[in-house]
């Protein structure tokens, strides 16, 4: 039987090659975690084109001097699809003003994972709560946020019949421990317009 003898140079080359392969595989797995969700929702297609004109919508804010909810106008772009407009509206609310006279009732760290619209008119908003400090997010703020989000969608888009909120992709009982989600009729009825601020 013939015995194969590797020289030390060959051994080093093989070892370096193996290390490179392992590093390459590791890097691929450790890459941007959002990449794996691309197909799920973080679509690479832009929400609007540069030449799309802007349109005004109303988002719910709180007047800091009184603590009362107030609608204020903001702009999104006139996109080709209503879905894109809705997603822009949700983002406009989440990224709304956190300084000044009118501020959005959105806690620091809250982010949009994904947004869907079902053929039945249910807007599904999947929110990330991992970066939100729960000790500064009580029932009042939770309720103002949920009501504000529902209004942003239902008052600006007639197609939205119901709003469903998911927390980190899950059908959670609450957003942050207080305001009860999940009773589907709750979102539906609220979307029908029970929430009225002073400017309504």
């Amino acid at each position, binding site marked *: 039987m013939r015995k194969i003898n590797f020289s030390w140079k060959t051994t080093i080359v093989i070892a370096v090659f193996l290390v490179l392969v392992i590093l390459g595989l590791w890097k691929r797995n450790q890459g941007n975690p959002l990449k794996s969700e691309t197909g799920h929702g973080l679509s690479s297609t832009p929400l609007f084109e540069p030449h799309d004109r802007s349109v005004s919508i109303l988002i719910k804010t709180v007047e800091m001097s009184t603590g009362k909810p107030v609608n204020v106008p903001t702009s999104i772009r006139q996109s080709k699809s209503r879905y894109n407009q809705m997603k822009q509206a949700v983002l406009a609310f989440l990224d709304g003003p956190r300084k000044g006279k009118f501020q959005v009732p959105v806690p620091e760290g809250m982010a949009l994972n994904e947004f869907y619209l079902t053929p039945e008119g249910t807007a599904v908003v999947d929110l990330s709560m991992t970066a939100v400090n729960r000790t500064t997010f009580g029932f009042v703020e939770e309720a103002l946020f949920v009501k504000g989000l529902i209004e942003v969608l239902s008052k600006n888009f007639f197609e939205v019949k119901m709003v469903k909120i998911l927390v980190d992709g899950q059908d959670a009982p609450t957003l942050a421990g207080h305001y009860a989600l999940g009773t589907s009729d709750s979102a539906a009825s609220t979307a029908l317009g029970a*929430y009225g601020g002073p400017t309504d």
Partner: protein
Amino acid sequence: MKPKKISLSIPALLALWILVFTVGLPRVWAKPRIVLYAAHGGSDSGVKAGSEVEKEWNLKVTKILQQTFESAGFEVVMVRKKDEALSTETWTNLVNTSDALLAIVIHSERDWTGRMTGPLFVVEPPTRTDNPVNQDIQRWGMTSLAQYHASLRLAKAIASKLGVSGELSNLSDSRGITGEMLSPEGRIWCMPHQDLRFLIIPSIVLTPLFLTSSADLKKFSTNDGLQAFANGTVQGTMDFLQMPTPVPTVGR
């Protein structure tokens, strides 16, 4: 004739003994039983504002309420007597099997504008059973229309005794607003609350104070302020239960 009287009293005593030990004391003779729950506890601190911690305030207020209710002739079931965490299932089972007339959940709050002050009430809206998409009542709990109306009456009675508006807030869920006055100043919020959705007796969340309000903190830092709140809550509860309302003597 004397021996005959004795012979009649023996069956009467026997009948009374049977009544007491088999049927139980009639409810009217017993003290009205209520449940108080100081929300959060243990590792769950609730909200914070500076050095103020919700779970500590909830327990402090609830203990004063317990004393005041007991001195007014109530039997009080305390869900939490110390700094401990209870699962939702544990404490809701305790409330629902307590045979109590009502439950009050104490939740101190915070508000980032710093403008809101207590007291504030939350009442669970009624569940729409006719809604075809509402298939998971067992999972999310159910509040009947009768239970909702009883809880709303309780909140209104206590609000009246605490000197605040007994109207529904205009932020309220549309399921509960039929026939009700709405107001931006309304202190009763009809909204789905995690601590109410599984309870089957009249129940409210009562926010005595906002930890972000210096006026509230000042008021509740004194015994008089705490006791005035407790007295109003007890008197409102007695009004709701249509009990004669002698003014509670604790702290007076």
